[in-house]
């Protein structure tokens, strides 16, 4: 077996093992089956073209996600006419405002009342589609970070490599993204009457 054949067999196995993860992330980025398939195929082709430059094969998985993410940024986001959302997390980090307290103070009183005393049953009452709707509502930076960490199990360091940002930014995005996600879920559940809004009671006591 030639070196190229050995490399190809190794690459093929790596793609087989990561196919589902690549498609899951691509679908959440593009929100479209056909575009997600194209994005994965294009990423795999680019990965093969660049595989010779991959020095540490143990980093194959984050390296693949980085290629996929770069393909999405350079091609698909332009096509889908979704403007690049403001990178307010990076701005906040740069300004030294990445503490959780700074984030929660920006939220509504009603949400904060719940956030301070959440009910675990709330999570169980949500449908999978509610959760995905809330994730899809997040800005790209938060959505991608949450998917890579929570769904694909990448470490913060690996996620930082994929996204081309410092690890501290991943940490900050996780905190902000998860809080924004909970606010979106809380809003959906509140609109659907799945949670009892105790905020009115809390407010009247305050007043």
């Amino acid at each position, binding site marked *: 077996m030639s070196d190229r054949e050995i490399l190809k067999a190794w690459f093929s196995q790596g793609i087989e093992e990561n196919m589902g993860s690549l498609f899951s992330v691509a679908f959440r980025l593009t929100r479209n089956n056909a575009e997600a398939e194209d994005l994965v195929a294009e990423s*795999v082709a680019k990965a093969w073209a660049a595989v010779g430059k991959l020095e540490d094969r143990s980093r194959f998985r984050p390296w693949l996600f980085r290629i996929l993410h770069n393909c999405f940024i350079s091609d698909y986001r332009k096509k889908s006419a979704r403007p690049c959302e403001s990178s307010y997390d990076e701005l906040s980090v740069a300004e030294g405002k990445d503490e959780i307290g700074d984030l929660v103070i920006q939220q509504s009183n009603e949400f904060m009342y719940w956030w301070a005393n959440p009910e*675990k049953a709330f999570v169980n009452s949500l449908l999978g589609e509610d959760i995905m709707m809330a994730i899809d509502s997040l800005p790209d930076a938060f959505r991608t970070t949450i998917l890579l960490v929570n*769904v694909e199990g990448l470490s913060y360091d690996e996620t930082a490599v994929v996204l081309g940002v410092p690890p501290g930014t991943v940490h900050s995005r996780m905190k902000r993204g998860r809080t924004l996600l909970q606010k979106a879920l809380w809003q959906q559940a509140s609109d659907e009457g799945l949670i009892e809004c105790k905020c009115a009671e809390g407010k009247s006591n305050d007043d």
Partner: protein
Amino acid sequence: MTTDKDSENIEDINCTEAIDKLYAYLDGEVDDADSIGKLEYHLEHCHSCFTRSQVESALSARIKNAATKHTPESLQKRLRDMIDKF
């Protein structure tokens, strides 16, 4: 009953600091034994933060289940055909 030692330890980190570290802790990103000890002690003694940690864990599991998609057969075939031609 809260002892003086408990009060001292639980005050090592307040609720804001505990929540600030909670996500990284649940994601396995806190490797400093002292920080882990202080956070776990706080969670054991603070009902609100403990409940939040339960909500966060449950939500992580739900996100993982909800976001994992089956790879379409058309894509599986497309990728295998493409790699065959490399």
